[in-house]
């Protein structure tokens, strides 16, 4: 089982066995295997059944270009087995089969393919119409490939954010040369490669290169130089998933055994980008081109050279490129019996390769290609014909290596604003105009010659480095000229298909769409590539544009008789590779802000709630209505953490000018010791923030804002002063200072026990005082009446706030001090008729609508105060909503917040409402149309529900308590 063909380019270690299970049975592979190659080594040939018709499918490509190898691995569905490294203990299961891939009971679908042409679900099963729900359920259950694990699946998903000067997509010879060219200049390089090794298409070739060594050795030498270079960071098993504006690239890396992550999502911000993604094999289209035993040339060659597995016993090749002739010779030398090589090209082969085939007695048919594969569960015979199908011959084989040449891997460039044109000589879509700071290099540009490929990589690297400010035209110009001179010597490619209706000549393996299907779809009128793709679903499977992406436009052109020049590649979208949602979610580190009193609150049994970026206390203990907390503030004294309040110092010659612009009140007569409550409006005169302002002396002020607006205050002030050359500075002290609210009839007594002794007679009647506690903490006291008649906010540096709390707590024990949270605060302020911005206000409620017009000093002129123009204009507008207080007629009936107020129409809504234990009433605030805003007006509040009830309430101006 561990016998592998020896060879110098082997990437597996046959000495090290890895155990796994397939369909519950124990199996073995070796270190370096992918799941697919391990299965192949164990004799598995049918890997899956196709999506619609349940046709047998085998190993076709080793680069994840199709979904023939999708399996469920360790409970995760739709994993591409051919690009997944084998790990000890993996549990592999086939999917989309009833039974086994070998004997699938759903294979009867193949006999029903006449009933399921493209778009059949739009036409059939609709009549009689009452059967459609049954049919749709059946079709839904049959559709889909893998089965989701309902419990989710564990995994460690991480993020990585990289910054670099140049990012190189593709670790083949062109990409490696580009990386070295950039790194030589000490610029930062990031290189992404989908495979688990670098070297690209050099890696499995044993013929001698222009540098003297075999290609595989040249590739590994370049790989080692790059990997060891300190300025280059290499990421293998990394697939680009998107490329976005300003060269932001997204990629997903699969973790190797031993790495801490299973998958990680990467974002790379690069100065310039070099795309060197190479070229993939263009699938040859012929009847039954999807049978197990049919594979791409590169797949066969890599099975032998990279994994040490002979891909079959007796092979037929239908190819069209010198690289494939080289593969045939090498495979023959490794022991594969080759019955015949059909080359679609009539002339143009490399003579030395033709001679080498002759020496090995391998027949070569020039101008011939495969027309049909025969055999149900695997290829047994191949019908070869010449291009016009005048002659044909049948050959026995168990392996058909079929390829129609090469096509560039364009996906990353297709996401950018690159303009493409078809190059007749190679049949490649070439990028003719790239956006700035984006370059392409290597085989994707149609180069075949290894020297040219490496030179184009170096050229792209130099151009990318030049973007970073290096003067490199002396190196760039000669290289450019030399490549231009070699342009016409690129190999010609012939794309063809043997004539025939093509009922089973598949364009898209994922969705079972054939050439005949395309003809049918075009006949129905879906004749542009985008329409055809969506109606036939060709190219919409897991491999996105991969295999069908190249052949669909060609099939369309053939069908419609268009020239090839009219071809345009279809759009591709991120992610360029199927990506787990878990990978996109990543580690998802959360930023949550805690106040300095966090630990104390936890010890007191607090329940926390998210308020913006902060976590704040909603209530203590078990009662979400906070009844005892509220009663205690009424009767004794309560203590609340209000550290999240915005706190700011503003200082400077023009500090007052700024404040006058931002606040509607006239603050020019503020004197130290005085605390003024004021409000800020937006340009529409609508209330956005309120707070307290005090003058500490001279040009030094201290002010508070609501917690929600704290973060935006610096921005708001800066925005409205950006045209002035004002001399002022704001320091955001929201985090640096903590604050507690002490409220209730015993507040003064508690406070007097903690402040230092020599405070003076009128201390407690001042609005704002700076003083010290007995234990030395410098504090600022603000006399506020938000939740109680007697109340103070005590502000202190955040590092000392816990000590302040403890001091007040200890002093308050004799007075029945208890903590209170947001819910209690909400009810207490409601009883006093105070608003909460954002709950009782909207962005369309002006200061006057809210009854706060008394804050606006009309005589203050010349400061361009924000919102004043709008206040003047809206003052007498008739149809405005007004904020009122209301009391429910039936105290036991409390409407939900947001309930609408109605008569014959909607007239307003409830903004805050609570049951007040102290008043034994249900009270609230509401916004209603002006005619209903008079004291004593009766309101109807709509409750809804099955009986569509309305509750009665009465408008009450002024505080309730």
């Amino acid at each position: 089982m561990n016998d592998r063909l020896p060879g110098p380019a082997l990437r597996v270690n046959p000495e090290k066995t890895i155990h796994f299970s397939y369909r519950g049975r124990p199996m073995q592979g070796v270190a370096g295997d992918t799941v697919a190659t391990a299965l192949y080594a164990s004799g598995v040939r049918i890997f899956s059944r196709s999506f619609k018709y349940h046709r047998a499918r085998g190993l076709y490509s080793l680069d994840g270009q199709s979904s023939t190898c999708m399996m469920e691995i360790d409970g995760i569905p739709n994993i591409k087995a051919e690009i997944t490294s084998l790990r000890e203990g993996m549990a592999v299961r086939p999917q989309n089969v009833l039974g086994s891939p070998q004997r699938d009971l759903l294979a009867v679908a193949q006999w029903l393919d006449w009933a399921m042409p493209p778009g059949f679900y739009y036409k059939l099963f609709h009549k009689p119409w009452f059967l459609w729900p049954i049919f749709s359920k059946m079709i839904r259950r049959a559709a889909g490939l893998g089965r989701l694990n309902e419990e989710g699946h564990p995994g460690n998903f991480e993020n990585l954010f990289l910054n670099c000067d140049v990012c190189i997509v593709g670790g083949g010879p062109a990409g490696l040369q580009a990386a070295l060219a950039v790194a030589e200049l000490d610029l930062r390089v990031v290189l992404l490669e989908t495979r688990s090794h670098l070297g690209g298409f050099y890696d499995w070739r044993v013929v001698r290169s222009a540098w003297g060594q075999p290609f595989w050795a040249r590739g590994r030498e370049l790989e080692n130089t790059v990997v060891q270079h300190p300025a280059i960071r290499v990421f293998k098993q990394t697939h680009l998933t998107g490329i976005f504006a300003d060269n932001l690239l997204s990629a997903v890396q699969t973790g190797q055994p031993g790495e801490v992550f299973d998958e990680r999502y990467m974002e790379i911000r690069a100065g310039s980008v070099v795309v060197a993604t190479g070229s993939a094999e263009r699938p040859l289209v012929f009847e039954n081109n999807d049978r197990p035993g049919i594979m791409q040339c590169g797949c066969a060659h890599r099975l032998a050279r990279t994994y040490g597995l002979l891909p079959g016993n007796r092979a037929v090749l239908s190819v069209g490129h010198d690289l494939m002739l080289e593969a045939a010779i090498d495979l023959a030398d490794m022991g594969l019996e080759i019955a015949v090589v059909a080359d679609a090209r009539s002339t143009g082969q490399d003579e030395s390769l033709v001679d080498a085939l002759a020496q090995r007695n391998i027949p070569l048919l020039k101008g011939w290609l495969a027309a049909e594969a025969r055999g149900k569960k695997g290829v047994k015979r191949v019908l070869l014909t010449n291009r016009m199908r005048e002659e044909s011959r049948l050959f026995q084989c168990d392996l058909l290596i079929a390829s129609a040449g090469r096509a560039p891997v364009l996906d990353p460039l297709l996401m950018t604003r690159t303009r493409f044109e078809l190059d007749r000589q190679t049949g490649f879509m070439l990028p003719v105009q790239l956006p700035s700071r984006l370059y392409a290099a290597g085989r994707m540009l149609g180069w075949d010659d290894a020297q040219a490929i490496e030179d184009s990589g170096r050229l792209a690297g130099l151009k990318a480095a030049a973007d970073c400010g290096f003067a490199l035209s002396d190196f760039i110009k000669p290289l450019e000229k030399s490549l231009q001179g070699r342009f016409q010597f690129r190999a010609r490619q012939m794309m063809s298909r043997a004539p025939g209706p093509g009922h089973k000549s598949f364009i898209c393996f994922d969705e079972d769409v054939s050439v005949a299907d395309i003809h049918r779809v075009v006949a129905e009128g879906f004749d542009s590539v985008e329409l055809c793709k969506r109606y036939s679903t060709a190219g919409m499977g897991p491999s996105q544009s991969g295999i069908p992406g190249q052949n669909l436009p060609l099939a369309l052109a053939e069908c419609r008789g268009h020239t090839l020049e009219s071809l345009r590649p279809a759009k591709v979208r991120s992610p360029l590779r199927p990506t787990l949602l878990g990978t996109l979610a990543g580690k998802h580190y959360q930023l949550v802000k805690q106040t300095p009193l966090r630990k104390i609150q936890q010890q007191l049994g607090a329940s926390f709630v998210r308020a913006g970026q902060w976590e704040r206390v909603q209530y203590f203990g078990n009662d979400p209505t906070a009844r005892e907390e509220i009663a205690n503030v009424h009767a004794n004294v309560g203590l609340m953490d209000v550290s999240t309040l915005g706190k700011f110092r503003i200082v400077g010659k023009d500090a007052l000018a700024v404040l006058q612009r931002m606040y509607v009140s006239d603050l020019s007569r503020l004197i130290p010791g005085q605390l003024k409550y004021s409000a800020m409006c937006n340009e529409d005169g609508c209330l956005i923030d309120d707070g307290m302002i005090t003058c500490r002396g001279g040009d030094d002020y201290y002010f508070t804002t609501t917690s929600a607006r704290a973060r935006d205050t610096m921005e708001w002030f800066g925005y409205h002063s950006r045209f002035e050359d004002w001399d002022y500075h704001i320091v955001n002290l929201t985090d640096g200072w903590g604050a507690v609210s002490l409220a209730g009839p015993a507040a003064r007594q508690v406070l007097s026990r903690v402040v230092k002794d020599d405070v003076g007679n009128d201390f407690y009647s001042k609005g704002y005082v700076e003083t010290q506690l007995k234990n030395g903490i410098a504090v600022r006291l603000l006399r506020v009446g938000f939740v109680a008649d007697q109340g103070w906010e005590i502000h202190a540096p955040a590092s000392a706030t816990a000590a302040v709390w403890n001091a007040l707590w200890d002093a308050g024990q004799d007075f029945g001090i208890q903590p209170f949270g947001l819910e209690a605060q909400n009810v207490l302020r409601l009883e006093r008729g105070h608003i909460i911005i954002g709950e009782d206000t909207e962005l369309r409620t002006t200061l006057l609508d809210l009854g706060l017009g008394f804050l606006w000093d009309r005589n203050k002129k010349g400061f361009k105060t924000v919102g004043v123009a709008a206040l003047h204009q809206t003052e007498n507008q008739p149809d405005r909503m007004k904020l009122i207080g209301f009391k429910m007629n039936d105290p036991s009936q409390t409407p939900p917040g947001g309930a609408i107020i109605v008569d014959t129409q909607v007239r307003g809504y409830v903004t805050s409402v609570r049951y007040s234990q102290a008043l034994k009433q249900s009270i609230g605030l509401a916004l209603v149309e002006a005619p209903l805003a008079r004291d004593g007006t009766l309101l109807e509040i709509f409750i809804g529900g099955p009986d569509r009830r309305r509750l009665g309430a009465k408008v009450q101006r002024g505080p309730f308590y």
Partner: protein
Amino acid sequence: MSATITCPICGRRSIYEFRFGGENRGPRPFDDQATAQQWYAYVHLRTNAAGPQQEWWYHRDGCGTWFTTWRDVTLDCEVEAKEGKNE
């Protein structure tokens, strides 16, 4: 969005670090010198040219400065200042 904005102090950064401050329309008029119509135009109306415009940006997650830059709104990227237009 993956576009970048160049802060004059911090350099090129992801656009998510900034707050957009709108098209540059000059300083606010005095309250008593503008009619209601003029105020409305100042607060709510924009030129909305399909091309480069001068915009205010605030580096909210960084240095906290307000600055202007020219950006082509059709290409969604910063451009050099437009000739002749200088605020």
